[in-house]
C-alpha cells in the first residue's frame, strides 16, 4: 500500500498535545496479521499517526475488505 499522492500536498497538521508539526515517516499498517509499510504523517513527539479520510475510505477500506475475504 502506498500513500495517496494528494496527501503529500496537504499542509502539515500540528499535534496539540506535543505542539509539534507532523512529519512524513514510514509507518506500518496492520490488519488480520498482515503488515504493510506506508509513508504517512506522524507526530515526532507522541508518535500518533494521521490517517487521512481519503485513505481510510478509499484504498484502506478496499484492502481491509480484500483481507477479510482471504
Amino acid at each position, binding site marked *: 500500500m502506498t500513500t495517496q499522492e494528494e496527501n503529500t500536498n*496537504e*499542509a502539515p*497538521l*500540528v*499535534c*496539540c*498535545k506535543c505542539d509539534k508539526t*507532523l512529519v512524513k515517516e514510514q*509507518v*506500518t*499498517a*496492520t*490488519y*488480520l496479521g498482515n503488515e504493510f509499510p*506506508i509513508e*504517512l504523517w506522524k507526530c515526532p513527539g*507522541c*508518535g*500518533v*499517526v*494521521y*490517517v487521512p*479520510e481519503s*485513505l*481510510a*475510505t478509499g484504498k*484502506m*477500506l478496499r*484492502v*481491509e*475488505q*480484500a483481507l*477479510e*475475504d*482471504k
Partner: protein
Amino acid sequence: MDGQRVRQWEAQCIQEQLPACSAACPVHVDARKMARSIAKGDFGTALKTFQHSITLPRIISHICDHPCQQACRRNEAGDPVNIGALERAAVAFGGNVASLRRFGTRPHSVAIVGGGISGVAATLDLAVKGYTVELFESAPNLLPRLRSASEGVLPSSAIDADLASLAHLGAVLHSRASVTHNDGETSLCALLQRFSAVYLAIGAEGELTRFLEAPLTIDPVTYTTNVPRLFAGGSMRYGSARYSPITSFQDGRYAALSIDRFLQGASLTASRELQGSQESHLYTDITPFEPLPQVAAADAGIGYTREEAQKEADRCFPCSCMECVKVCEYLKEYRSYPKRYVREIYNNLCIVMGVRNGNRMINSCSLCGLCQQVCPEKMSMAEVCLDARQTMVATKKMPVSAHEFALRDMAFSTGDAFATARHQPGFQESAWLFFPGCQLSASSPEHVQSCYQLLCEIRKGGVGLMLNCCGAPALWAGRKELFEEHCASLKQIWRQMGQPKVIVACSSCFRTLKENSSEVPIDSLWPHLNSKEAIKLRPQFAGRPYAIHDPCSTRGVSEVEDSVRGLLQRMGVQGKELNPRGQTTCCGYGGLARFANPELTDKTVRRRAKQSEADYITYCAMCRDSFARQGKRAVHLLDMVFEGQGKDPAARPDPGFSRRQENRARLKSHLLEELWGEKSEVSMPELIFQISEAVRQVMERRMILESDVRKTIEAAERSGQKFKLPNGHFLATHCPASVTYWVEYTPGANGACEIYNAYSHRMQVR
C-alpha cells in the same frame, strides 16, 4: 455445509432440466437453443446445435416424426413451434454441414445387420469412435424404406449427401447381402464368430426366424439381447404399429453406445437415466405469453425462407423457470439461478487458500424465503445462505466487519440501556407479556407506550412488559451460539415472569421467537388490536389511497395478515394489495443484507416502492423506515391506530442508527419513570453536538454512531491528544475496540461541539 445437502439443493432447482421439446426428443435435440439462434438469424449455430445430436441432419430434418412438437409448451398459447421446419431451415441456411470425423482406431470390429436408419446411425457412431464397421443390407441400396418416399417429402439428394459420411468414415457396405441363421459366410452365427459384436436392426417386418431358434428379448435401455454379444434395436424392437424414424435413430445411437461400452469393459447401465423420450420437469409459466399461430411458409413445398424461420423461431418463449429470480432483486443481481448459486456458495466455502469472492453474495440475501414460496419445488436460497453463514462463522471465515455493527446494535438492545422486564404496575404476576421488539421501540417509541396501555386495558390478569431483542440479528449473522444463548436467556426471563402468553408487535420477532422457542406461546399484536375489546378505542382514519405492504417475516401467516386487513376495514381504510396474498417481498432489512450490500437493498426497496403510487401501510418498523429512507411515503399501522392523520406520519423520516438507540434508551427510562415510578439512572451526556443533516447522512452511511463521535471527542478533550488542521478545526482519533474513529470538530460555546466530518477504518497504523 454438508455436501449431501448441497447436492439435494442443486437437484431441487429445476432451471437446468430439459425443456419439454428436448425431453420429448429421444436423442434430446436442443430445439430451444436452436430456435434462439434462428430467431437471431444465426443459422450456422443452429445447424451446429442440431448436428450435436443428429448425425443424419438432412434426412432427419425432412422425415422426423418430431415428438418435440406435441410436447412444445407453445401448444398452450397458440400452435406448437414448427421445430421440424426450423431444423430444415437450419440445414438449408446454416452453411456447410460439418462432416463426421473418425477419432483414432479401435482394435475391435462390429457388424451391423440392416441398413435402415437405426443400422446406419449405429454404423456412423461406431465408425466415428474408431471401430471397424461392416454394414449388411439385403436390398440393393441402404435406407430402402426412405427411398420409397416422394421427392417432396425426402429428396434423394438429401439421402445421398448424408450417406456419404459412411464411405468417408471407412465403413464397409455389403448390399444385397442377406443374413440368415447359420447358413454360410454371412450367417448370424458366422458374423458373431468374425466380429466382436453384432447389432441387429432388420425392421419390424424382418424375419427373425431366419436368425434364431429361440425368441429374441431386447433390453430397452442397453439394447443387449439374450444372445451374448448380439445387440438389437430399431422398429424390430418397438414394433410395426407406428414407424418412428427418430426412435429408430435413437436405437441405433444408444445401441452403438452400449457396444462401445461393452467392448471397453465399461458398465452398460451406468448414467442412462436421461436416455430416451421423457417428461420435462422444467416449470414454465406461460401465462404472460399471448397466443400466436404458427408462421406459414409462403411455399410449403420448399419450406421456410430465412425470414419466415426467424419469425417462427421467435415464437419460442423460450421455456425457462426462473420463478424465484423474477421476484427477487438479490437473485437477479448475480445473473444466474439457484442451482448455480448453490455450487458457487459451496465452492466459496471450500476455498482453503485464496480469495473468497462469494462472501458478499452469501451475506446479501435477506433470508426472506420468497424464493421458496414461489418455487415449484420449494427450494429455499434463504436456507442455503443461512447455512453458509453459519459455516463461515464456525470456520472463522466470516468477514469480521460483515455484521459487527448490527451485532453491536443487538448488544445495545439486550443490555441495560434498553432491556428490562416488569409486571404490570399493581400486579404481582403476568398472564400476558408485551414484547414490542427493538425496532418499533427505536422507530416509534410513543406507540410502544400507547400499545402497552391499550393492552393493559383490554387484557385481564396482568400484562407484563419486556423490552429486549428477539435475537434475529444473531440468527441472521450465522452466529448460532450467540443466538442460542440469547434464546435461552429470553426463556429464562419468560419463566421468571410466570410463563405468560407473549404478544409481539414486530413480525421478525414473531417469526424468530415462534420458530425457535416452541414452548413459549406467541401471539401477534394484530389480532389483539382487531379484537372486540379494542375496537372502541381506535379512531377513524381515512383519506388518501393506500397499498398494503406485508412484512416478509409473517408472510402467509393468516392470523396476522387477516387481522391487519380487518383492522384497516374497521378504520375505513381501503388498502390495495401489492401482490398475491402470501407473496410479499422483503424491504431489505431482513438477513442484515443492508449491512453487507446497501446498494442492493436500496434497489430492492426502490423496486417495491415503485409498485404503487399510493402511500404504503406496513406493520413492521424496519419496512416503514426502509421506505422512508428511499423517499417513499409509508405509515406504520400503529400510526393510524394511535395518531390520526393530522401529523402526516407517512412523511416521517427514518430516525437513523444513532437516534434508534437513543429512542430505545429514552423509552425505557420514560416508561420506568411514568408507569413504575422508578427514577431513571440513565445519565444524559454532557457533551452537546451540532451536526448538520449532511454530516449526519455521511455518518449513517459509514455506520458511525453519535455515541462513537462523543467518545472520540471526550477522549481527545480528556487527554489533549488531537491534531489541529490548517482550517483551524480539531481532528480527534479514538480506537475503543476494532474500529478507529476520526472526528473533525470545533468545541463551541457552552460546550456544544460542531461536527464537520467523521470517518473510520479497521487497520491499525503505527
